[in-house]
């Protein structure tokens, strides 16, 4: 087990490196560099840009150096000092902007993941055990519909219905009183009251996918001889179902976290824009449109890192659940 954990941690390093490269490329992609933007902004504001300020900034970000040095400078600033650079648009350190938004992104994604599981697991079992029943067709149908509606459209439709028929605005994660409030129990409760809307929107497609996975896995497992062995022992159907095939089918199910999490984080970006949630999505979009590249790059970097960490956790969970993986080294 220890060896597996260790190997898994080592495997993570090149992935993280790759993500940082991509984020860096995205920062570099727009024409002109950071400094050009700053100078343009300063001049636009009518300020005189002094040569030594420019030189100072150049040195700070290593802009006069070759690309790989710039990358090293950027990444070591992040790793060693937690300095993600400065947002031009907001004129504050990127670090100050992203953490609370990333935190809420993680909260939303994890909540959605749990919701997805809570629904998909029992429904998947039901659909497999009662294959081709009315309920199975019903859930399969819902599943297809869930897969075919883009998240943002679902969000729009829900908002429309809430606005039109209940005269309510379902956007945001907090009531107006709590938007700027410090974290208190009341604020958490307020957030939970708002969380379910994006959770359902974001979770529908994933739930549909997971139901199909759970159903298919369980159908495979139900045909395995060990189920018959368990039945021949005299176990009751429910008990043997839960102890054997469901337990075995749980493993591939757990391993889907690795696939689901990127999709959730990815999807939350766009749903958050529609619902104007205070998560990463809207700010990332704004940063991209304003070409506030350090902010955008940092978001992309950190969203990638969160995904990788989530995948790591799911792999470790899987190893803990499945002795075959634990022993296979």
């Amino acid at each position: 087990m220890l060896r597996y954990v260790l190997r898994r941690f080592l495997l993570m390093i090149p992935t993280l490196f790759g993500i940082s490269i991509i984020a860096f490329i995205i920062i570099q992609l727009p024409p002109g560099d950071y400094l050009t933007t700053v100078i343009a902004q300063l001049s636009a504001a009518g300020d005189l840009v002094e040569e030594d300020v420019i030189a100072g900034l150049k040195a700070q970000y290593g802009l006069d150096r070759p690309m790989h040095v710039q990358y090293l400078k950027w990444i070591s600033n992040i790793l060693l000092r937690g300095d993600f650079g400065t947002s031009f648009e907001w004129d504050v350190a990127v670090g100050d902007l992203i953490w609370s938004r990333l935190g809420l992104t993680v909260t939303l994604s994890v909540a959605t993941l749990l919701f997805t599981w809570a629904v998909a697991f029992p429904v998947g079992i039901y659909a497999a055990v009662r294959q081709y029943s009315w309920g199975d067709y019903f859930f399969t149908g819902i599943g297809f519909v869930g897969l075919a509606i883009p998240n943002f459209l679902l969000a729009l439709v829900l908002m429309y219905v809430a606005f039109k028929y209940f005269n309510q605005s379902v956007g945001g994660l907090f009531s107006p009183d709590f938007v700027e409030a410090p974290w208190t129990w009341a604020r958490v409760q307020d957030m939970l009251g708002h969380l379910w809307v994006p959770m359902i929107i974001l979770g529908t497609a994933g739930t549909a996918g997971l139901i199909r996975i759970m159903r298919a896995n369980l159908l495979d497992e139900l045909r395995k001889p060990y189920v018959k062995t368990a039945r021949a022992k005299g176990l009751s159907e429910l008990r043997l179902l839960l102890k054997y095939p469901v337990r075995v089918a749980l493993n591939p199910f757990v391993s889907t976290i690795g696939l689901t999490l990127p999709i959730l984080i990815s999807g939350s970006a766009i749903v958050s824009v529609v619902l104007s949630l205070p998560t990463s999505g809207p700010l990332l979009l704004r940063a991209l449109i304003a070409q506030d590249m350090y902010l955008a790059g940092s978001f992309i970097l950190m969203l990638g890192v969160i995904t990788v960490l989530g995948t790591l956790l799911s792999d470790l969970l899987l190893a803990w659940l499945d002795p075959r993986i634990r022993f296979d080294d």
Partner: protein
Amino acid sequence: MPVERQLSAEDLLLEVRDLHVHFPLDEGTVKAVAGVDFDVYRNRTLCVVGESGCGKSVSAQSILQLVDRPGRIVQGQIRFHRHDADGSVTVTDLAALRSSSRALRAIRGRHIGMVFQEPNTSLSPIHTVGNQISEVIRLHLGEDEEAARRRGIEMLERVGIARPAQNYDAYTFELSGGMRQRVMIAMALVCSPALLIADEPTTALDVTTQAQIMSLLQELQADFGMGVMLITHDLGVVAEMADDVVVMYLGQVAEYGDVDRIFHAPAHPYTKALLRSIPNLDFDQDIRLDSIRGMVPDPFHRPAGCPFGPRCDEVIEGRCEAENPPAFSLGEGGSVRCLHYEEVALS
């Protein structure tokens, strides 16, 4: 129907009568078992032999109603005689019970144990050996964790597993195929059932392991005094293990009798052909082994008349295509489904 033999009725464990198992599929109904009769006695081994697809496994699995969907028993009786410690006998028709009923579950694993073909896949890959064994003990004997563990380890030792206490906590993928089959046998016998059904228990194993498992079964039978129903396609195994033999062809019992009679005076043309197709050390080297002409027919298209007719060398023109022969008694409990024995039975 088999005539009562010298065997005492007290030793009777299982009577299967006119069993029919059908699989309704989109393409048509497969009559996997089409009217099968046989008996199993305490302390005796019944071997069911036949080619693949002849319905021998389905017959065996239908006793505990373990046939895969959509297969189901459509007709017939499976009377299980339960002998209690006080000498009383209760007879239950297993075919009449619902497959998930409490009554049937109380018999599964407790009074009838079952061993399957594939030890690799018949055990759960993610539970320990001990977990899977103790489960049966706790379920049927109501023992606590501790006692179940002791009994389980004892049983593992009994079936010849080295370092039983250690292997009790092992996962099944850490064991060899032969070891796994021993675990399966331990699991099936740990509640000392009166009847053991072994469905091709050695097909997936290599030859040496096969022999070991077979002698283990013989040993255990001597110890526990249980009846054994052994499904196999291997006539060698039959010769070694069987007291009584059922030869199946296309879901019917072609021939039934005790092992000596079947080997020395086979009656059914199919039995004869089967026996001709096994290698024999006494034969001359250059004699070719016979194979049976033709193929087992498509399950959706059973031949009219005698099911073996199209492949039979002794066809009676005009009759075998038309009549599916009933079972004719051969005396001493033996029977055969072949028109050639009509007169024998009459006389």
